[in-house]
């Protein structure tokens, strides 16, 4: 159970490394309640009525942006989306001024996705509103980490001593960094594998085991998290061809057989089917990829609720 004194009220959500296990727990419990709201016929509650949330997206996004927007709307908040094209950002406005501008419109939370590592922390320093990091470069994607955590727990898995494998582009992955931070904190045994050129320097020092062969990482795993491979990485010479990647590092049914029979397969999406994940694995019974999307809304509802109200009005939910 979350301790009574744990609160996320008014806190920025920048990364999972700086959050405590108790804070994770609070989010998990709240997200469970939020998921119930999503199952209702009329999925709208007034908990965040009168609150305004700005989705400030400097990078393309389908699921994260939509997920945050619906999360805010299900809770009754006003949600405004700003994307780089069609805003003053194209006129060269700097991030400081953009943050100050939206803040002046009395927004309560800024949900930001940005291609530069540390951009969320920078925005948080400028902003009085709560900043929720929706992905900053290769640094962190805390809501993805929390929704993965929720999904894994929903499958009855409780981290301690479990073998987790993260496969693919660890170097440029904010999802990998967020999950490594959370899973090692929760006592799981975390393994990573991928082309050597996509494994960052000294990653072992974050408490993970590195494998040259994906088979070794997957063997006996309780969870396999398959990362998206961006085609730019191949173009910049980090691996020879997509064909070779799929053959050697891509996860297919045959490789997945090495994992535990009840393995949970995760993928943050969007998938490159046939590259990092085979068609069959993407649709197999062990794949929790669509659960991740569903839980993403619940987790984001929980975070918006907790940061903007401190959970004080939780009775309004039921």
């Amino acid at each position: 159970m979350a301790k009574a004194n744990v609160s996320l009220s008014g806190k920025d959500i920048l990364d999972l490394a700086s959050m405590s296990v108790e804070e994770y727990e609070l989010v998990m419990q709240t997200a469970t309640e939020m998921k119930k709201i999503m199952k209702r016929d009329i999925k709208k509650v007034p908990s965040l009525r009168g609150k305004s949330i700005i989705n400030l997206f400097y990078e393309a996004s389908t699921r994260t942006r939509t997920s945050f927007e619906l999360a805010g709307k299900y809770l009754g908040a006003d949600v405004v989306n700003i994307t780089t094209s069609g805003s003053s950002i194209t006129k060269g406005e700097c991030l400081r001024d953009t943050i100050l501008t939206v803040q002046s419109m009395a927004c309560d939370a800024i949900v930001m996705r940005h291609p530069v590592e540390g951009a969320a922390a920078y925005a948080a320093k400028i902003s009085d509103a709560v900043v929720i990091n929706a992905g900053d470069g290769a640094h962190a994607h805390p809501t993805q980490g929390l929704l993965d955590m929720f999904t894994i727990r929903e499958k009855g898995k409780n981290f301690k001593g479990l073998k987790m494998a993260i496969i693919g582009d660890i170097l440029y992955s904010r999802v990998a960094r967020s999950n490594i931070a959370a899973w090692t904190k929760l006592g799981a045994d975390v393994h990573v594998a991928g082309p050597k050129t996509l494994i960052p320097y000294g990653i072992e020092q974050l408490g993970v085991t590195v494998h040259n062969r994906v088979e070794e990482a997957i063997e006996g795993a309780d969870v396999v998290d398959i990362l998206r491979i961006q085609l730019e990485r191949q173009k910049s010479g980090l691996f020879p061809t997509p064909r070779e990647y799929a053959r050697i590092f891509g996860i297919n049914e045959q490789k997945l057989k090495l994992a535990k029979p009840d393995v949970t397969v995760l993928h943050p999406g969007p998938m490159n089917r046939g590259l990092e994940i085979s068609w069959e694995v993407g649709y197999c019974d062990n794949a929790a990829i669509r659960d991740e999307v569903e839980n993403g809304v619940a987790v984001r509802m929980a975070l918006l609720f907790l940061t903007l109200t401190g959970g004080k009005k939780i009775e309004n939910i039921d």
Partner: protein
Amino acid sequence: MKTLIKNGRIVDPSQNLDAVMDLLIEDGVVKAIEKKITEKADETYDAKGLLVTPGLVDVHTHLREPGLEAKEDIVTGTMAAAAGGVTTIACMPNTKPVVDSSIMVSGIKDRAAREGYVHVEVVGAITKGLEGKELAEMGDMAQKGAMAFSDDGHYVSSTRTFTLAAEYISAFDKILISHAIDHELSSDGYMHEGVVSTRIGVPGIPALAEDVAVARDILVAEYTGAHVHIAHVASKGAIEIIRQAKKRGIPVTCEATVHHLTLTDEACADYNTATRVSPPLRSKDHVEAIREALKDGTVDAIVTDHAPHAPEEKDVEFRYAPCGFCGLETSLGVILTELYHTNLFTIDEIIGKMSTEPANIFSLNAGSLKVGKPADVTIIDLNKEWVVDSVKFYTRGKLTPFEGKSCKGKAVATMVAGKFVMRDGVVCTR
């Protein structure tokens, strides 16, 4: 005009001097240096309890003029030098336009002589426009007084071009300064590749990018016989390559910056744009290797790489920030705090690396208080405690990774050619 500096502890590595003595200056040059000088002077400065040293020499700075005056100009940059106890600075050619012709060299020298507060030496470009293709008119620039040549900020990637430049300039007895980074290897990186970059998700620049570049430059120095000076060495691999090259008698020298001697990549962990610099701040093992090399003489000089930027340029996301920060007003204080008061280096070693040795490498008439030398003097209070506060800086580019640092030791007066340009931290009006 005679000035007498009395009772100071004179530390002058150029004459192995460390003793309480009087220093008489007449018409801009050192007239006498004796136990007790009784001659009447126009002005007497009591330096009791203070250190009197040859004026500090910083062979790696950016004055940004012409073209980039939002960052700095000759006036503000030389005021910052005076405030920091630095009496001679060399400025790099990456201005707009680039210093790649003799008129640019003379233009900067003339303006600095008229408007500046300290001596300014000019480093000319190796290639036209710093593009790494055609050689700039180095001979002409040399004859107009360019101190050395560098495509600073840019590595001359073409080995042929760099070799031709070295061969060509060796006939003019000038030095090539290399900003040694293999840009293909550094790729999209913008901090040191290490555990910190891995943790915070920032693409890393491997130390290898510096090592291979330095190795090539040294092979070129060996082949051509030209003197190559490696700018801001920051990696343990590169420093070992330089150490071996020196043993083999290859004409190579190098410098280390104040920040590479005192800060690690942990300073970047909160994405502070003040820590973004090239080469990047590296991990502790590299910093220790650079300190060791400073001790054993592999590193010849301490520099700032004073590289101011306008506030709006640095108040951005980490990746978008330009490399570099100001350094002239913090260099002595930080070095004394981190290297002298920690008993790692003697004051003689420090003044040698910050004055005498860089002056000798580039054949500057500086770095010495011998009789007849220009009276460029720095007076230092070794025990003065102060806190770095950029609001008080003279430089225009105020951002520094040393903001708020408690320092011990500071220049309290700076004299250039016999005239005080700074007293008690305040730059004198011209």
